[in-house]
């Protein structure tokens, strides 16, 4: 049904999306907690910064990444020197681009679910001798877990579809940076690819539906649990 090349494209897409999510989860959790629980100077600016990828043209993000993380970029050169990591025109770069683009979605879902945890429960935990850090791991995170997982799934789905920033930052290299949307785009540029396009589109739809179904299932389960359906 699917050719080996197509399987490789899907595998690469999943790898890029997974890497992007793994990369952004800790940072997104931190940002979400800061936005939900702390007040500090410049919070509005920080909030805007987090949301920027949502409203900027993806090409702009891709270009900014290219300038910063390209071979000659400030951060790109430093990363290559100290850790031997190259991002430009590599699948890791695609993962970074997808992570940046999915970040606001992830933070948003996490922030909402952290805000839904009663601060009084956290206060109760602190009176029982738990530090802020322990309160986060033992009370805040477990109680906001459904929302956190939904945020992860949303960002994952978003990463699978990332196009503009990816193609600008790491180009469209088959076998290295050519993810599903980029492959579909390439096929539309060449004659006679209609059947392949349809197959890849079907795969995209299937993956997106699975992510949405999973998040819906988690939401329902969480609601049932909070209504107290047994132990």
């Amino acid at each position, binding site marked *: 049904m699917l050719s080996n090349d197509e399987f490789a494209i899907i595998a690469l897409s999943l790898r890029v999306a997974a890497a992007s999510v793994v990369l952004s989860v800790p940072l997104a959790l931190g940002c979400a907690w800061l936005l939900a629980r702390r007040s500090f100077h410049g919070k509005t600016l920080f909030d805007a910064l987090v949301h920027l990828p949502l409203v900027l043209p993806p090409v702009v993000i891709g270009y900014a990444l290219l300038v910063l993380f390209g071979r000659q970029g400030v951060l790109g050169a430093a990363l290559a020197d100290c850790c031997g990591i190259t991002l430009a025109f590599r699948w890791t770069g695609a993962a970074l681009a997808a992570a940046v683009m999915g970040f606001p979605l992830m933070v948003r879902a996490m922030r909402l679910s952290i805000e839904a945890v009663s601060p*009084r429960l956290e206060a109760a935990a602190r009176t029982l001798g738990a530090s802020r850090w322990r309160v986060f791991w033992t009370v805040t995170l477990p109680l906001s877990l459904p929302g956190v997982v939904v945020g992860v799934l949303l960002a994952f789905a978003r990463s699978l579809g990332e196009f503009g920033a990816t193609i600008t930052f790491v180009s469209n290299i088959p076998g290295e940076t050519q993810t599903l949307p980029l492959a579909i785009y390439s096929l539309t540029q060449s004659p006679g690819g209609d059947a392949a396009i349809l197959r890849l589109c079907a795969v995209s739809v299937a993956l997106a539906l699975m992510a949405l179904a999973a998040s819906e299932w988690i939401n329902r389960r969480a609601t049932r649990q909070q*209504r107290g359906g047994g*132990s």
Partner: protein
Amino acid sequence: MIEFEAEVRFAVPRRGEGQGGVERVSATLRSEARILALFGRSGSGKSTVVNMLAGLVRPTRGHIVIDGETWFDAALGVDTPIERRGVGYVFQDGLLFPHLNVGENLRYGARRAVRREVSATLGFDAVVDLLGLRPLLARVPASLSGGERQRVAIGRALLSQPRLLLMDEPLASLDNARRGEILRLIEAVRDEFRVRIVYVSHSVGEVTRLADEVAVMNDGCTIACADTETVFNRDDLRPYTGRFEGGVLLEATATRCDERLAMTHYRFDGGELVAPGTDTAPGARVRIRIRARDVAIALTRPSGLSIRNVLPATVAAIDDRGGAIVEVRLSLAGGGHALLARITRAALDELQLAPGLPVFALIKAIAFDRRSLGFTA
């Protein structure tokens, strides 16, 4: 020893408990009591004071010293974090962790105890058994009743080995039957575990039953802090302590039980009282609250009467503020103890009561139930 002299100002007038919050809460407490009650109506700032003790609200100025250890001092810049203060906090609504079962909730605070290397004077089994929590250990909080939830909350606070147990209206969300049960448990906790308790309530019944000392709060300020008997018998505090339930407090000792009649006799320095129930051991000290509306007055010692408590007394004063009801202050013949009687104006006229007149105070034995008998150890 609790030394508390602190104040907090809220930038925005905050809605306190219920309606009509205050912008400023300022309290001065000095107490060695086993149970210190913060008493006052809703919105008077009681919870804010407790939150300052716990570290949940940061005072604007002042200092908080517990047993010689400074928890907060604005001048010295000391502010011990909540988790290192060693308080156990029982909230009005329990606030159990919904994602943990009862056993896990109970053990949540045990870690601090280990780290602080306090010997676990409050053992897990002892607390679980005293509060009757063993059958609940595997349940989740959502499946518990209100009373069960509050029992778990008390156990959880105790197992964190607190130096100070804070209870903010722990009975507020319970029905009357559960209230009696939790009150008994609080007394048991006080006697078994020797932990100091700060108890917040607007209920005269709870406070007179439990507290050794009472701090009265009004409009965000402490207006009195003294032992319970003094506070509730002080006339100038009546507007705050007895508006709805005027009465007096007596300290008494159980002398003997009559098993056949299921009655117990109590002796106080002004006479003897009998009350139903035999679960008070002879020799136990109790505090009896006699509500003004439970006291009747007779000019001669009546006979053929169902009322068990007949005490000779003298009319000391008559508080007549107009209306159908007047309050008569009686001085008991034995030791000058005071009683309040609430009677109708019609009765006052008919009996022609006047200060100095010898009378008999009549109190139905069933006016004292478990709710008006407070046990003091």
